[in-house]
């Protein structure tokens, strides 16, 4: 029972629940709901001046550059175990309104993107593009379980095991 409860709690934390177009609390230390306008940028370009077309076509980490010059790193979206790049690449160099959780952790600040829209008056959409794209690329399989069905992941885990070391087992 406890395991089921933990699983559900964790799933809620990792994926978010409900569909309200406003940031949802996930119970993470240091989290704060945040909605702000920012330009979607290629982080590598922003830092080094090495700027390929279309923010690197999704092959580079994307950031949110606020008007005051603050660069925010979105590392998570609404999909379980997935980042926000697929949600943002369509807005490369455009201004969006980002809605989600800013996490002020002593190690480093993070942003979890939950909803986004083209600024100022675009249509809100849930930040779950990764799952949709994965499903489309995998014959319509459910995006919610993508991590269990992804061919690349399956290959790595089958070769090296869940602990990453072939043959390593837990003590009985």
């Amino acid at each position, binding site marked *: 029972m406890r395991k089921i409860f933990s699983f559900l709690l964790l799933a809620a934390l990792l994926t978010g629940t409900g569909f309200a177009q406003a940031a949802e609390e996930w119970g993470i230390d240091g989290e704060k709901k945040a909605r702000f306008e920012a330009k979607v940028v290629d*982080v590598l370009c922003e830092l080094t*001046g090495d700027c390929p077309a279309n923010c690197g076509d999704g092959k580079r980490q994307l950031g949110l550059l606020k008007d005051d010059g603050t660069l925010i790193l979105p590392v998570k979206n609404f999909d379980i175990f997935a980042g926000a790049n697929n949600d943002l690449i369509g807005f490369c160099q455009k201004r969006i309104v980002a809605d989600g959780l800013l996490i002020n952790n002593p190690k480093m600040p993070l942003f979890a993107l939950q909803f986004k829209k083209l600024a100022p008056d675009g249509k809100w959409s849930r930040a779950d593009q990764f799952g949709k794209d994965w499903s489309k690329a995998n014959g319509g399989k459910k995006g919610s379980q993508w991590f269990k069905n992804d061919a690349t*992941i399956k290959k790595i885990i089958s070769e090296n095991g869940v602990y990453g070391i072939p043959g390593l087992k837990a003590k009985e």
Partner: protein
Amino acid sequence: MDGAARKGSMMKKILTLALALAFALSAVPDAQAAKSTRVSVTGEIVDTWCYVTEIMYALGTAHHQCAVWCAAGGIPVSVKDKAGNVYVVLKVEGDGTNVANPRILNIQTHKVTVDGDLYERDGVKYLIVTKVANDQGIVNLTHDEYGIQPFGK
């Protein structure tokens, strides 16, 4: 040159200067190279989200599978050093992709020493790895204590 002609000439110079300035400013790209520092970092390759937020135990063998899931899902990967510093990896050597980079997927949880350029911006340490100098493989055995994170077997 009379006063009117002198005034006209001055206006022309100011206008030319203003146009030149406007052109120069418009030619400056939005992104400008920031200053970097050469560093050598030794630490474990970790999933940035799980490790920083502490939503679960996110180090070593116990978290390896989840770290692979997250890297494949495009969550930025970092190197965590002994002091607890988190270096977000933006590029590895000449690799053309850094989102779900196949090379990084295959060395998740490994203890590595990397050389690179460090950029610090708004509280985040961004690392461009120019060389993976040493790869010790997975040495942080945490599974007996923490099981398989996050769901268990």
